């Protein structure tokens, strides 16, 4: 176990080495590797530990894994307000190519939470993914934008957090925790769920928010998981999401696809 963890490597990759990645090698069992696509903003930080645990679990079961941060997020280059959807999709493809390079080709699966799921699904073709496991994928981009706006509006008057309510000016260009841009807002408003036309599994939390409620044709294929991440709860911004049932469900579906 210790030797395996030592072999896990943090590194920068991609054009200009702008993207941060963490490679979890594994003894080749199936020839399949897994790309973990993170969610966006505060959700990325809340899911960090969960992604690490999933990566360990998958690597232990013989699936090499690459975790990475999009441009403008995590340890990758770029300011937070530089995060944009087209670049995010390009980063998925860059990360997929990097993973292929490191594990030597073969099939590639992806797991993503929230916008991470949408990114994997939308980039599936260019990244040449063979399957995607999505968790609380965003089905309605406009609802997500409304949710972030509403959370920011609650945040500024949260007297559990601030001594005095903050004026609009202090929060006008932000979503919880991060600067945003008009471009990203427009891009997310247009966001719809894309059927990748490849193997897919749809994990949903026990009480999904409006932005990730699955309609047809996905509803009949959804797999409920006993996890309550409280994506829309402004009191949960600093809370890490940890869930054994989610890890188990994600691992099981990825193993089945491998």
């Amino acid at each position, binding site marked *: 176990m210790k030797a395996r963890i030592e072999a896990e490597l943090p590194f920068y990759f991609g054009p200009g080495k702008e993207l941060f990645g963490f490679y979890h090698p594994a003894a080749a069992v199936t020839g399949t590797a897994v790309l973990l696509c993170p969610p966006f903003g*505060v959700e990325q930080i809340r899911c960090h530990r969960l992604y690490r645990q999933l990566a360990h679990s998958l690597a232990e079961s013989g699936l090499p894994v690459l975790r990475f941060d999009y441009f403008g997020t995590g340890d990758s280059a770029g300011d937070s307000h530089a995060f944009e959807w087209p670049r995010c999709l390009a980063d998925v493809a860059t990360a997929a190519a990097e993973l292929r390079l490191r594990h030597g080709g073969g099939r590639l699966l992806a797991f993503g939470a929230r916008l991470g799921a949408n990114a994997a699904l939308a980039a599936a073709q260019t990244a040449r993914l063979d399957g995607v496991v999505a968790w609380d994928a965003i089905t309605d981009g406009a609802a997500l934008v409304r949710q972030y706006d509403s959370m920011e509006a609650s945040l500024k008057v949260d007297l559990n957090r601030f*001594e005095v309510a903050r004026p609009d000016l202090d929060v006008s260009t932000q979503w*919880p925790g991060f600067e945003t841009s008009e471009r990203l807002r427009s891009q997310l408003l247009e966001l719809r769920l894309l059927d990748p036309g490849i193997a897919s599994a749809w994990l949903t939390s026990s009480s999904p928010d409006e932005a990730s409620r699955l309609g047809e044709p996905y509803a009949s294929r959804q797999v409920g998981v006993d996890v309550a991440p409280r994506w829309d709860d402004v*009191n949960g911004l*600093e*809370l*890490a999401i940890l869930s054994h049932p989610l890890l188990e469900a994600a691992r099981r579906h990825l193993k089945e696809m491998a």
Partner: protein
Amino acid sequence: MHEQAFRFGAARHLVGVVGLPPVIEHGVGMILLNAGMVYRVGPFRLHVELARRLNSLGYPTLRFDQSTIGDSGASGQRLSRPEQVLADVRDAMELLKQQSGCTRFVLFGLCSGAQNAHSTAYVDQRVAGAFFLDGYGHRTLGQRVRHYLPRLLSLSVWRQRFARRRTPVAARPAEPAFEVEPLPPKIVRAQLAEMLHRGLKLDFIYSGGVARYFNHVRQFRECFGRLADHPCVSVSYFKEADHTYVLSGDRQRLLDHVAQWMGHHFPITRTGSSA
């Protein structure tokens, strides 16, 4: 900007990112410690933004995860948590020294990070300065007066209280929170005095998010007496900000403050070098 990721430490169990300025001179580097259980990027990416700002000013930086936090594993050594923290920060200083050549370090810690910065700064001679954000401090008579008096005199507070009595509001559920284990004030004061005697520069920053125990810049004197007059001590109270600097404007003000403080106490004598 030049950043490089490392696995390092006695047991190669630690993970961190070194940021280097364009020109590297032997001087002072900054090490950013975990804020509670938040991994090395910091709350809302605060540590990434701060590290890059300092790199652009000429200071090398290392943001890293201490043992068992973020991407770092356990060291496998049988050490108490305080011993492990010290060992981890020493490993971090060694890495930053190898990568940048700097031999003196400024520690930056928020909440439990402040506590860890304090304990390390107290025992390690290579620490030249520290930022303690929402670190040690304790409630004082002045704090209680400032907290309760306006509430007693506020009509709206009384209205809310009566309204609540009529319509009971569900209490906010208890959540795991960033907490600093209190060290007896007497010990904190003695240890700070020892650090100042060694010539350390110390910056204490408190946010409005910890008004429950610290609510005015003057309170530092109420807590630590004459230490407040020491020329190497500076104290700030960011009343508007919350504990984790969730608003980007608050983070920018904090970054500006840190950059200014560094420039004052560890000035860059020419591009990429600090005195």
